[in-house]
């Protein structure tokens, strides 16, 4: 077989020669830098960014929480000494961030499920000037704002529980 050519079997079982597709160049990918750059984008992109950041943050917290609760099997002293590390002002502020991140991730996640199902996207339309995509409409924007407002309200509630007397 000539170099760079591969056989492909058609649905009719006929073998055909095809030019091998080269590995795509990664020069056009910005990787993490592009992922973390919110400056060129609108609210939808910032919401995409927050969804991923809060997801990674919550997974790290969850692993830490599973480890933290495992200390209970070593007895009361082990549990209380580990608890002392978390029951501080900084520990409480960290918990408030967890409350905010989980509320945003949940509310925005529900919006994304609706969007993936095509609900709230609007009908397709001709791209006229100023070329605003019909899919990024007020329903999507209000969903993002609702997620942010719910997150702030949950953080406020958490603050009152953890710091209030």
């Amino acid at each position, binding site marked *: 077989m000539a170099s760079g050519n591969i056989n492909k079997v058609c649905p009719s079982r006929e073998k055909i020669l095809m030019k091998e597709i080269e590995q*795509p160049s990664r020069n056009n990918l910005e990787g993490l830098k592009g992922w973390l750059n919110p400056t060129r984008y609108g609210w939808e992109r910032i919401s995409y960014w927050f969804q991923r950041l809060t997801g990674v943050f919550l997974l790290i917290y969850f692993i830490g929480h*599973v480890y933290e609760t*495992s200390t*209970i099997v070593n007895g009361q002293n082990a549990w209380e000494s580990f608890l002392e590390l978390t029951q501080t002002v900084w520990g409480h502020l960290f918990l408030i961030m967890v409350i905010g991140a989980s509320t945003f991730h949940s509310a925005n996640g529900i919006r994304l499920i609706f969007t993936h199902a095509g609900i709230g996207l609007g009908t397709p339309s001709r791209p006229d000037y100023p070329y605003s995509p019909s899919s990024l409409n007020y329903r999507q924007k209000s969903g993002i704002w609702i997620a942010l407002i719910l997150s702030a309200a949950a953080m406020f509630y958490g603050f009152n529980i953890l710091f209030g007397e």
Partner: protein
Amino acid sequence: MESHRVLKESQIMKIHYITGIAAIFVVAIHILMRLIVPFELSLEYDYIIANYKNIIYVLILESILVLISLHGFNGMRIILLELRQTKRWENMVTVVTISAMIALIAFGTRTIILANGL
């Protein structure tokens, strides 16, 4: 290569959404268990051990563990696959995330079983 996949990406996304929605409900119950008593009391050793001896609550804890591990590590897999698209990377990410998920579920289940026996 596609025919060797156990699940299609569309099926994995459905699992991702179902585990996410289900996790919201079970985590809400878990948080309510902390709020029905004063917060400080909810973290006391005897109260936590009593929680671990309640079989319904144990089932809720185990479901939180499984649902969030599935959802979280699949989310991590999706993020990592967005960064690079080669077959080798995809296989490596899938193996690492599934292994980490199984390890976390096993470790958390061990805590639940041991605390239930205290």
